[in-house]
C-alpha cells in the first residue's frame, strides 16, 4: 500500500478501535475542513474589494459587480449546508481540542495501576470521555442553531 492510502485509511476509518479513535478521526477531519474553509473564506471575501486587482486600480464599480456575483453564487443551499456542517466542526474541534490539551498534560486520566484482567485502561477514563461527549453535544447544538439560521426550521 502506498503511503497515501495508508494515511487515508488510518485517518478516515476509525472503526473497531473505540471512542478515542473516533475522536482522533473527527479532530483531524474537522481541522482540515476548517483550514479549507478559512482559505476559501479569505478568497471569497477578497472579492468584495475586487480580488487581487484592488492593488492596481480603484475598483469600486468593478468590486460591486464582483461582490454581487459572489453573493448570487453563494446563495445556494449547498453552501448553507456546508456552513451548518462547519458549525459542527468548529465547535467540536475547539472543545475536543481543550480536552486533548488537558489529556496531553495527564489531566483527566487515572493513575497507573496493576493490570488486572479484564483490563480497564486508565487512559480511557470517564472524565476524558465525558468531555468528548460534551464536545459532541455542543457541536450538535451548534448544528441545530445554524440549521435554524439558514433554513428557519425551528423558528427559534
Amino acid at each position: 500500500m502506498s503511503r497515501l492510502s495508508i494515511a487515508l485509511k488510518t485517518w478516515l476509518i476509525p472503526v473497531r478501535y473505540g471512542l478515542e479513535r473516533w475522536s482522533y478521526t473527527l479532530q483531524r477531519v474537522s481541522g482540515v475542513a476548517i483550514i479549507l474553509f478559512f482559505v476559501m473564506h479569505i478568497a471569497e471575501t477578497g472579492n468584495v474589494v475586487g480580488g487581487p486587482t484592488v492593488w492596481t486600480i480603484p475598483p469600486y464599480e468593478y468590486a460591486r459587480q464582483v461582490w454581487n456575483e459572489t453573493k448570487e453564487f453563494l446563495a445556494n443551499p449547498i453552501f448553507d449546508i456546508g456552513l451548518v456542517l462547519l458549525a459542527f466542526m468548529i465547535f467540536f474541534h475547539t472543545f475536543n481540542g481543550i480536552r486533548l490539551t488537558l489529556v496531553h498534560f495527564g489531566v483527566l486520566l487515572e493513575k497507573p495501576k496493576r493490570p488486572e484482567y479484564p483490563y480497564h485502561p486508565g487512559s480511557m477514563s470517564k472524565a476524558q470521555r465525558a468531555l468528548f461527549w460534551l464536545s459532541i453535544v455542543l457541536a450538535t447544538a451548534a448544528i441545530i442553531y445554524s440549521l435554524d439560521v439558514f433554513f428557519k426550521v425551528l423558528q427559534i
Partner: protein
Amino acid sequence: MQEVRFRVFRYDPDKDGRRSYQTYTVPTFKGMTVLQGLLHIKEKIDPTLSIRFSCRMATCGSCGMMINGLPRLACYTLIEELKTRTITVEPLRNFPIIKDLVTDFEEFFTKHRWVKPYLIRLDTYEQEKSNVSYRQSDEELEHYIQFAYCIKCGLCYAACPVTATDKEFLGPQALAQAYRYYADSRDEGGVDRLRPLAEGSRLLRCHFAGSCSKVCPKGVDPALAIQLLRREVLLRT
C-alpha cells in the same frame, strides 16, 4: 464437530512475491485458539505456511497478527470469541512483511533500544558493575509496574495510526518503556531521558487515538504512559 474457514494472507518473496489470500477449512473444538487453527493448517493441510510463535500462553509476544482486522495474539484469541464463520488472518500492520504472517521487528526493537530500557545510575562504576540491590517502597513500585508488564508483542505498534505514517515517531511500546524507566525511583536518568524525546515527532506526535491501549493484551495502557511522559517533557524541558 464444527468447522471454521481461515482466510490467510500469503506472501513469499522467494516465489512470485504476490500478495494473496488462501482459504482453509479447519475443524474446531471447544477452547480452540486461532494459533491452534493455524498450526492445524501447517501440520495437516499446508506446511508452506509461515507463522511465528513460541510460548502459546501470551507471554513471549511472538504470535501477534491481524485477526479479523484487529491486532491480537493468536494464542490468546479464542475462535469462539470472534463469532464469525470466516476468520481473516493477516500480518501485523506497520511492520514490513518477511513471509506470510511473519513480520520484521527490527525497527520496533531499534526504537525500544533507543529509549534506553534499563536503569541509569549516575555513578558509572555502579552502572557497569553494580552488585548492590536498590530498595523500593510499594508505593514507588506502583508508579511504573503497569508499564513493566509489556511483552513487546507489537500489537500497540500495529494499531497506532501515527506510527502508520510517521517513522520518526517512536511508537507506543517504546514510549511506554521510556516512561516506565523514567518513573522508576531507582533510575537516575531524569531530565536527560526527557530531552531527546522533546525533539521532532518522536513523542509529541501522539494524538491520543488510544488504539494502543485498546489492543494491548497485557493491560499495559501505553496511551496513559505517553501522556504522563509528555507532561514531564512539556513541564521539565
